[in-house]
């Protein structure tokens, strides 16, 4: 029948995320609407927190592109965030350039640096890449404090940045304006990422992640893709860094350390690996879980944070977004289900199978 061919293609596109189903579009519209009206209901400080959520979401998406979609492990993204932040700081305070120009510049600088880092990183796999990026994270604060460049970087004390005013004389607070600015940037960058990842490029990246030998045997220029992915990933994180500097109004070397890189990774995994909506949840987790942990225990908040991390991995191994998708599938499948699954001798066999498939 003539119907079946386009139907299969449509199904495949829906499954891979290349097309959005009706319910997905609806969900997206609702989320956007919610995001737009949010600042009207909350205090300036909360608006600032949610701005940080958006900013971290961009950074997390950057890392997700590299680690989730392309399988390259990075513990060094704090460096790119730092580069973005300092680019913004230097441009705004040293050269008096308007804040919105800092984003594209930060992005391009990080694209280049990321690409250059990605080139030697081609030789390193898995753990070794982790160590190399780890080294990058550790080196970053030390390099930022390096005396010869302190006229620009402000050395140990860092640089303070003036908060920008809303344009066109809009009657809203600076914090709220920054929220909308960040939201606009986020939407643009997320749409770009979606476009990039749903087409040939996305498939190439995933192929490289899942089976690099087969990918190159099929003609994918693995080396080029991998380095470019590093660059693009750095670009996203750099833009986030610039935004972060503007929002916090301050950059200092010690904040861009290994723990920041780990925080991004936590956001990626708990938000949802290889997913774009997951990045938003990642941002939420990064901003709010530490706060929450502190409320639970003033004396040992990081212990609570650690417990949260572990519990998330037990109960939501595919991340928050993965969990939501699972729930959604359960509920929609419920209409078509034909019976309950059989009781099986599951425990050890399933665990064995899991170990084997890992």
């Amino acid at each position: 029948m003539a119907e079946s061919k386009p139907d299969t293609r449509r199904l495949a596109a829906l499954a891979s995320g290349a097309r959005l189903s009706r319910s997905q579009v609806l969900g997206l519209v609702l989320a956007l609407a919610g995001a737009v009206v949010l600042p009207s209901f909350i205090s300036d400080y909360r608006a600032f927190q949610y701005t940080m959520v958006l900013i971290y979401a961009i950074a997390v998406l950057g890392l997700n592109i590299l680690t989730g979609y392309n399988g390259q492990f990075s513990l060094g993204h704090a460096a790119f965030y730092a580069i973005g932040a300092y680019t913004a700081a230097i441009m705004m305070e040293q050269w008096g350039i308007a804040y919105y120009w800092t984003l594209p510049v930060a992005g391009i600088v990080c694209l280049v640096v990321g690409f250059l880092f990605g080139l030697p990183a081609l030789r390193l796999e898995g753990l070794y890449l982790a160590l190399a990026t780890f080294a990058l994270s550790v080196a970053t604060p030390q390099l930022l404090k390096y005396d010869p460049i302190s006229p620009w970087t402000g050395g140990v004390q860092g640089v303070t940045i003036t908060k920008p005013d809303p344009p066109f004389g809009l009657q809203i607070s600076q914090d709220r304006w920054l929220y909308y600015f960040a939201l606009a940037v986020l939407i643009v960058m997320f749409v770009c990422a979606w476009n990039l990842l749903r087409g040939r490029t996305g498939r190439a990246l995933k192929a490289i992640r899942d089976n690099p030998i087969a990918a190159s045997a099929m003609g994918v220029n693995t080396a080029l893709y991998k380095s470019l992915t590093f660059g693009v990933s750095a670009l996203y994180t750099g833009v986030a860094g610039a935004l972060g500097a503007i929002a916090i109004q301050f950059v200092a070397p010690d904040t861009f350390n290994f723990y920041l890189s780990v925080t991004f990774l936590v956001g990626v995994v708990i938000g949802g690996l290889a997913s774009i909506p997951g990045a938003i949840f990642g941002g939420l987790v990064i901003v709010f879980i530490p706060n929450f942990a502190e409320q639970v225990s003033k004396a040992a908040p990081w212990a609570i944070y650690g417990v949260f991390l572990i519990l998330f991995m037990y109960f939501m191994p595919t991340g928050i977004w993965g969990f939501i998708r699972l729930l959604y599938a359960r509920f929609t499948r419920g209409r078509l289900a034909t019976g309950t699954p059989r009781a099986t001798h599951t425990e050890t066999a399933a665990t064995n199978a899991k170990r084997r498939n890992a």
Partner: protein
Amino acid sequence: MALLEVSKLEAFYGQTQVLRGLSFTLEEGSVTTILGANGAGKTTTLRAICAMVRTSGELTFDGQRIAGKATESIVRRGIAHVPEGRGTFVRLSAEQNLRLGAYARRDAAGVEEDLERVYGYFPRLKERRGQQAGTLSGGEQQMLAVGRALMMRPRLMLLDEPSFGLAPLLTEELFRILGAISRERQVSMLVVEQNASLALGIADQAYLLETGRIVMSGSAEEIGKDESVRKAYLGY
């Protein structure tokens, strides 16, 4: 009472069902073969016995239920599994591989005896005892896998496509040795094979598996003479 009793065995890889209610028995001291084409579920059957896949149904070995138990405790009851792909410990030496077969045993003297016996069956392994197992040829690794299983002094050996990837002469020799082992050591065997004629050559009982169900059963002689089996699996 049969050594191995399988009743209404079902097996799943994730949501996919591969075995659809297998029932068969294996008598002590016999060699049974399960034949079938690719994808029929032969390997899955052996893995189900050792709890390496999700199963439901009854599995009884030597009168005791083994369904639902962990692999390592099932094999300790006397079942040795020679897996698909040999399962060699590639970074250890050949002899270390063999000795690992005796890991769960407590009788040191018996272990040494059995080691010499394995080297007797497979002199090539003795020559290469100190060599890293991953550097052995396919045929040698197969011998190593069988040897390792023998070191367990099992009552039942499960062999998963022992002929796979081996040259014809080598395969014949291997099956000859398997036949000898079964007679001399009184080891019962369940051999899963695509190469029907070789398997029927040493078997007493045979089952034919198609898409997860047993479609034919009988003595090896009967099955070997059956028209449809001959045409489909023996090539004449």
